[in-house]
């Protein structure tokens, strides 16, 4: 299982300056601030953002409820159906998505998505029963922004009003 490598290349324009001796956190976590800001309820626990979560919160007594703001790919329709699929629900077509409730978000209109049942996040986590989803998906310029709340059904139901207020408070960072 030994091989020898002697290939080299010259330094190119793509070789940008780097930070030497960066820690694992500096290497693997985004150091940039989120482009989105919002006023989260006081009882939501703020968590560090991740590569895919611009804003990240935990809520509820069970400790398994979470809310996060992401920038996503695809269309609003794609994202609605991706979420519904996580709850084993059938895909919607464009007409059905257009008929969903609308809320204001980041200067545009977002669709409000709800689902409940078995939740399979697809991130290697096991499927959990009795979960619910509430969230919004909006096309803002060329990007798709999502706010997703998932957790035990009772806890999500109890937090929906706060979630709506949080979505309304979202704004682009200066």
């Amino acid at each position, binding site marked *: *299982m*030994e*091989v*020898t*490598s*002697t*290939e*080299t*290349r*010259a*330094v*190119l*324009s*793509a*070789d940008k*300056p*780097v*930070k*030497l*001796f*960066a820690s*694992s956190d*500096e*290497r*693997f*976590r*985004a*150091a940039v601030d989120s*482009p989105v800001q919002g006023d989260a309820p006081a009882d939501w626990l703020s968590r560090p953002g*991740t*590569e895919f979560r611009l804003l990240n919160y935990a809520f509820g007594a069970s400790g398994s409820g979470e809310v996060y703001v992401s920038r996503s790919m695809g269309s609003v329709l794609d994202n609605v159906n991706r979420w519904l699929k996580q709850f084993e629900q059938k895909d919607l077509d464009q007409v059905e998505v257009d008929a969903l409730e609308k809320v204001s978000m*980041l200067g545009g209109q977002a669709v409000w998505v709800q689902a409940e049942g078995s939740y399979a996040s697809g*991130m*290697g*986590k096991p499927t959990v029963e009795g979960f619910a989803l509430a969230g919004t998906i909006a*096309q*803002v*310029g*060329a*990007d798709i922004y999502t706010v997703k709340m998932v957790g035990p059904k009772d806890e999500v139901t109890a937090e929906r009003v706060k979630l709506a207020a949080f979505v309304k408070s979202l704004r*682009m960072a200066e």
Partner: protein
Amino acid sequence: MVEETNQDSSAAMQRRKSLPSLVFHFLAGFPLATVLMLILLLQTWLATLEQVDYGLHATLRKYFDPQAFYIIGELRLPEEIGGLALKIPMPGGYYVLGLFFINLLLGGIVRARKGWNKVGNLISHAGILLMILSAAVTERTEKRGTMDFFEGETSNTAQDYYEYVVEVSEHTNGAPKEVHVIRGNYLADLRGESAPVRKVLLPSLPFDMEFTRYAPNGRVMSVSEMAPPAGTPVLDGYYIFDRPTNKATEIDVAACYAKISPRDASSIPSFILSGDVFQPHTVKVGERTFTFHMRKLLWPMPFSVKLDKATAEYYPNSTKPKKFESIVTRLENGSEAKVEIKMNEPMRYEGLTFYQRMMGRENAQLADSRPYSQLEVVKNPADQWPFYSLWVVTVGLLVHLLIKFYVFVVRINKKRANQPQR
């Protein structure tokens, strides 16, 4: 009785044919051509259906890769009739095309009847041969990558679409001097929990490296975000979560576990390499400082390209591009040339083709943020051959049609001339 005699005679003729002659007639024959074209038709159809589920790149590799000597095509029946997936074994498309090339060369050129009235046929067959040849040359030599830059930036680099490599650089005075490249083919087979460890000897460096558990689409996760699956190595609070690959494999992000073995026998902790990091890993070996970086293979261009202006227009209320245009300056040996690169209007220069691929802004929400452009860079000597081959086939068919028409007219005139005058 007469029939028996004919059969005997035919058998005798067959016996008289030498083995090379039989092979030639088999390879040049219509039966083989028919079978090969049917297989190609089936493969094209199945690959078109399969790429919806598995992605274009993966499907093309499955059906037409030179390493695929045989393939199992998959045909999924509609749900209404059971939704069964039929498995259809067949030879690899690369070799079917190769055999078809030989068949057409022998049957359509070498053995074909020659003559002035067959010129069109021969030209058309030559055009199809050129088309198949271009596919083989493309398979063997083509390189594809992207060049990304913001307005005002200059680039002399293309980044490969698919291949992740490990780069090792020694830093003196804070900057790298030269970059050692460990190619992806040394890593790609180190998959899964029971992956072996591959030692890569680096003779010009004071250490060798070891790699294991390569994930073609691995995400580096913090244990604080998600508990690692049992048996997954955790290094400094992080581990590699091995995700399924995407249909569009170019968006996969590779990762692996790495270790360096200094020749002075000192011990240095293992670390994670990922294509999705903000900084490289740094290690001090003696008094020398080295960085370790996993990224897509970079290839230098023979000239530099400066992005002067990037223009993106979209259809109203959609992200569908209406117009993408990059105005660039090509810089080479002190000379400059302005070029406009638009959708379907690439820049071709020194064997490279630059297509307009993507456009965007540093911050999509701010109209005055810096625009960027992504060009697709293709190096393929056969780039234009399919285009030429279509012209050759067209000319051949046209010549054939004109000859047939001429023969028809001559025959009619002869017939009229031979008819008795009233």
